[in-house]
């Protein structure tokens, strides 16, 4: 029975965030979307919307530049690669953590969760500097690795100012954003399902792959979204400890707004990035809906 309150219940619950985001996100962003069709100002900012002849100054120049100068697409694809790797590594590291916290005794759960996020209340720069110490050429890790490499006659490899350093820090910075959504999902898994499976003879791996992992997929997708999407646009980490080849699309975008003062082109790159991220997220969600393996569907297929 459909209740009449259900329809305007939707607006009651969804209304306030919708209004807030329309005012403080959609409106400002539309200004910059409009900017992508404008001409850059001579010394910065944007040229006037209505030029001296009284005509509206809108054009597709900046978009044309993106599609004709292929270097930007190249860098964009490289960033997608880094973001994908980051997401995968985060998932691998975060899953055991999330499982442990979710299955811990009630009194420990919140504390363990807090312990995951506590390091991230220190300043970002300081944490990256700590990684520079850990990965520096004079520190134990680099010396160890290069010692092993030297034993095989290989040239020493820099750990700092390299893609390796960038990836390690990307994973580090995004890890809690994978742990938390996974935990929130795993926490509600019913232990009795697993007990029943065990009683029916399923071993540990089977219990994980057939029951836990499929049920956790919404958490996996949420974590993946919250890692992949922000990781696409990151620039600070390559700036501080990246090598000469580690420029990502976030760095290029930052450059357009700062040194180049080409806001329209910066807007174009940003829009492409955002649209691509949203499209990829929608694609992943669609794939997820198609392939979702639930225990019930497994039962059905066996019957």
């Amino acid at each position, binding site marked *: 029975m459909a209740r009449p309150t259900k329809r305007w219940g939707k607006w009651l619950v969804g209304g306030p965030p919708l209004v807030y985001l329309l005012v403080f996100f959609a409106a400002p962003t539309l200004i910059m979307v409009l900017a992508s069709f404008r001409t*850059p*100002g*001579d*010394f*910065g*900012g944007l040229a006037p919307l209505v030029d001296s002849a009284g005509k509206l100054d809108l054009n597709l120049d900046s978009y044309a530049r993106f599609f004709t*100068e292929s*270097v*930007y697409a*190249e*860098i964009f694809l*490289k960033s997608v690669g880094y973001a994908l790797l980051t997401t995968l590594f985060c998932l691998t590291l975060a899953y055991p953590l999330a499982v442990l916290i979710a299955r811990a005794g009630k009194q420990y759960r919140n504390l363990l969760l807090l312990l995951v996020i506590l390091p991230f209340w220190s300043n970002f720069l300081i944490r990256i*500097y700590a990684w*520079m110490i850990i990965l*520096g*050429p*004079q520190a134990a890790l680099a010396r160890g690795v290069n010692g092993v490499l030297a034993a095989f006659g290989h040239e020493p490899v*820099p750990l*700092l*100012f390299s893609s390796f350093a960038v990836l390690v820090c990307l994973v580090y910075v995004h890890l809690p954003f994978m742990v938390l959504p996974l935990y929130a999902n795993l926490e509600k898994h019913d232990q009795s399902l697993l007990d029943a499976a065990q009683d029916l003879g399923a071993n540990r791996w089977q219990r994980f792959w057939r029951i836990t992992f499929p049920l956790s997929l919404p958490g996996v997708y949420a974590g993946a979204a919250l890692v992949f999407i922000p990781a696409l646009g990151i620039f600070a980490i390559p*700036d*501080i*400890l*990246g*090598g*000469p*080849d580690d*420029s990502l699309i976030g*760095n*290029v975008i930052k*450059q*357009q*707004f*700062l*040194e*180049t*003062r*080409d806001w329209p*082109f910066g807007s174009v790159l940003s829009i492409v990035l955002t649209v691509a991220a949203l499209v990829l997220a929608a694609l992943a969600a669609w794939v997820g809906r198609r392939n979702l393996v639930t225990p019930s569907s497994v039962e059905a297929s066996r019957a």
Partner: protein
Amino acid sequence: MKRLVPLLLSLVIAAPALAAKDQLHFYNWNNYIAPETVKRFEDLCKCEVVQTYYSDNEELLAKLAAGAKGYDVMVPTSNAVEALIKGGQLMPIDKSKLPNLKNINPIYMNTPFDPGNKYSVPYAMSTTIIGYNDVKIKELGLPTDTWAVVFDPKYLEKIKGRITVLDSANELFAAALKYLGYSANDVDPKHWNEAVAVIKKAKPYWAAFNASSYIKELTVGNIWLVHGYSNDIFQANQDAQAAGRPFHILQGMPKEGAVLAVDNMVIQKGAPRPDLALMFMNYLLEGKNSAELTNLIGSGNPNMEAIKYIKPELLKNPAIFPDKAVEAKLEQLKDLTGPQRRLRSKLWTEIKAGR
């Protein structure tokens, strides 16, 4: 928790009302004024100097271009001053309130971008040069008075992975152009392509394009040679000595010349307290006050009165107070036009993308 949030919220809202004292809003680089200087001014004017910071001219320009207001005094570099003047963002300076202006060396006054100093007054200077670890570089027998050590593979292979360059298209192109014998402000696309070739040839030997953590790495000894700012290199040496390192960080002035950055005091158009701003500027133009910054961070000083207050060892340092011959080779960067900036950006992106 329920009570904490409203309490904090009310504090946050009440805070502006609590700060009713006279305030001067000073938007400056971090560590670009001695704390004692500020304190004495606050006692003098019975006001509060509210300092906020930026670490790059372009950040300042972007924020002002988007419409930010409320600053009184700012300290942009010359090419940024040029952009601000053209963008109508500055208030003309009432020079009658700046009697100490006569202290500034005339060669730094009356610049092409601000004739008659209508809007800007020189504050401090730095050069973009070479910084190096004296022990390591001596061991390797490398020169430190030429840009070749940054661009020529025959030198670079000895310091592969141990050298960084600035992550700034303007600075790196300027250095490459100087190395090739052109002016740092050369805008001929052919010369730019030559510079790009030089950069791409040297890039495999560089550890990183870095404008933020390179000084730290130099001081620690992970990096042995940098393309960097003279003030930062000076500070790096002070830190290295304080940490008891077995080497010095020295400054190398390339004989082909280098970029000179003159930072200027300006007043934002629509500044809330232009009166305090002018008082502050006049105060900073006094020899004694101006010298405090140089003594603190080793910055160049355009103020003739300040000379008698500056530490003698700094006066002898050719990177801070270059002699006439070197001075002739130093150039201030001019602002580029829109199309030029876009071309440079494209070339820079291609360099960074490893094409």
